[in-house]
């Protein structure tokens, strides 16, 4: 009676079943077998099956075993197909960026004479050539890497944007990076400027290097955020989990992180999609696929939030058209997505803990949009939430570029809602 547990571990084969059915077992063996049957409905069913069929299944089982051995190859191929597809995509992306890099690089060398052209390049060209921007983003980053290889800490540096935990020197550098990286379209028109420009930050970089005694080699992590049907997700937030330092993808879902580590654990966030964690490696382009939130269904809040947000925004935009002298380069909806995705969690915590009936927390900012798309003189004009001011300014400061409609420096307003 107490031996049940041990006997249960025995896995009976057809050989045993056959012996049992033909009464070839000893009495105690049969007894043990019957006990096992009672505890194991599978064995019990199987014995029933063989008993009712009343034939020797040895040959049939041999046939099945043979067939089973033939199956794996087929199945393995099936399960590999997806991997091959993903690998193929990666290979294509990689080779494309290498080719573009080559082309771009040689352009730089060949077109050396036209040095001063950049300044004449109008902002419209940037907008017009939005599409080329994807590729050039990856290309230009190569320059960026050399610019930033001497950052002291394993700080992760956004491709063309800000350095969250940066020092004063780094602030200066940031402006330079802006100048270099955010003009990919202009550079393609008058490429040599980048060579020219990149020298300046390098010298600055050297001073920074001297000040920071240690020198860390940084690895580059190139990635792309897409949804399940492979459409890029604009302005998704990517945050390294340990340090809390992060960046955001551009309008085409591309992003770059720099870190001394070779593997990064990142958390991604994109409106209407499930936040996901991913492990990034510095080799090749990493694709992060985010699942659509609607599919999961039990988290509709962000979707609702988004709709509300969009409507309000549209209303506001039409209300104040006459005042608008500058707009985000990638459009309002992308900019709003950026604001939502990249709002720090602690600020969102504020939002979720507040009662719905309470006044909405918002910060209206006024600022200048420079001809190069950067923002200066950011000031709080009106605010219903003091604690949010800093975050609102940070979002704007680190955010995507704007575009002044007149092409000159323009003052404009933007309201961040929490």
């Amino acid at each position: 009676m107490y031996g049940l547990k041990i006997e249960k571990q025995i896995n009976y084969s057809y050989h045993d079943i056959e012996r049992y059915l033909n009464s070839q077992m000893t009495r105690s063996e049969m007894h043990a077998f019957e006990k096992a049957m009672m505890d194991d409905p599978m064995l019990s069913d199987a014995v029933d099956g063989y008993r009712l069929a009343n034939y020797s299944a040895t040959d049939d089982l041999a046939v099945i075993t043979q067939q089973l051995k033939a199956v794996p190859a087929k199945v393995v191929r099936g399960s590999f197909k997806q991997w091959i597809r993903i690998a193929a995509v990666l290979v294509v992306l990689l080779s494309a960026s290498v080719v573009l890099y080559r082309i771009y690089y040689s352009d730089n060398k060949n077109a050396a004479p036209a040095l001063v052209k950049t300044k004449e390049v109008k902002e419209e060209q940037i907008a017009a050539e939005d599409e080329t921007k994807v590729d050039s983003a990856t290309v230009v980053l190569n320059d960026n890497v050399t610019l930033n290889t001497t950052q002291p800490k394993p700080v992760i540096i956004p491709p063309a944007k800000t350095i969250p935990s940066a020092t004063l020197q780094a602030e200066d550098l940031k402006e330079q990076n802006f100048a270099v990286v955010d003009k990919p379209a202009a550079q393609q028109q008058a490429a040599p400027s980048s060579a020219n420009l990149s020298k300046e930050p390098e010298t600055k970089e050297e001073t920074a290097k001297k000040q920071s005694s240690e020198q860390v080699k940084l690895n580059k992590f190139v990635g792309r955020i897409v949804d399940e049907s492979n459409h890029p997700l604009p302005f998704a937030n990517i945050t390294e989990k340990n340090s809390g330092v992060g960046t955001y993808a551009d309008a085409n879902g591309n992003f770059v992180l720099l870190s001394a580590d070779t593997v990064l654990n990142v958390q991604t966030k994109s409106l209407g999609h499930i936040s996901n964690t991913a492990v990034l490696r510095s080799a090749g382009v990493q694709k992060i696929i985010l699942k659509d939130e609607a599919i999961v269904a039990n988290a509709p809040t962000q979707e609702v939030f988004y709709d509300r947000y969009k409507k309000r925004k549209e209303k506001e935009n039409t209300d104040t058209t006459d005042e608008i002298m500058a707009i985000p380069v990638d459009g309002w909806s992308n900019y709003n997505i950026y604001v939502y995705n990249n709002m720090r969690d602690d600020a969102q915590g504020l939002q979720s803990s507040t009662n719905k009936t309470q006044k909405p927390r918002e910060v209206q900012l006024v600022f200048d949009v420079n001809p190069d798309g950067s923002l200066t003189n950011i000031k709080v004009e009106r605010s219903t939430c003091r604690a949010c001011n800093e975050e609102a300014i940070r979002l704007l400061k680190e955010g995507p570029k704007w575009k002044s409609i007149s092409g000159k420096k323009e003052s404009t307003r933007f309201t961040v809602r929490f």
Partner: protein
Amino acid sequence: MSDAELVALYHREGNVQVLGTLYQRYMDLIYGVCLKYLKDTEESKDAVMRIYEELVEKLRKHEVEHFKSWLYTLARNHCLMKLRKQKGKITVEITEPVMQNNDLWHQEDAMHKEEQLSTMEECMQQLIQEQKICVELFYMQGKCYNDICEETGFEWNKVRSYIQNARRNLKLCMDSKLKNK
């Protein structure tokens, strides 16, 4: 390697050969199960293959703790689905889920053994005559079904169901009595 280890390995590496090894362990039983429900050797052979294919897909998505019982459910459902497709609606005798792993005899600790044995005696008295006889012959005297058939003149199937039902009744009886104490 244990089933659980192989399942974990398959989850990690997605190697179908690992799964093949695991499946072979239960193939004999699955073929028997298929024979029971489908009652046809050709169909059963086919079903064993289909179940394997289903397994390759499903095991990838599911966390499985007790592989054997999970596989049994998978196999049985496959057969039942097949029958339903073939004959429109069909009533298949679904055997009650036989209790597994949680046998009442494992609950004991030495302190309560005595108490449990006396409770068991009481419960035994409450069983119907046939069940009591069969249980005594099977558990106390360690006889096999064939012996019991000879001794009592009951049919083989009857003997089995007497013992199974007696076990269930005993468990219920024991549970309620021990709870009251």
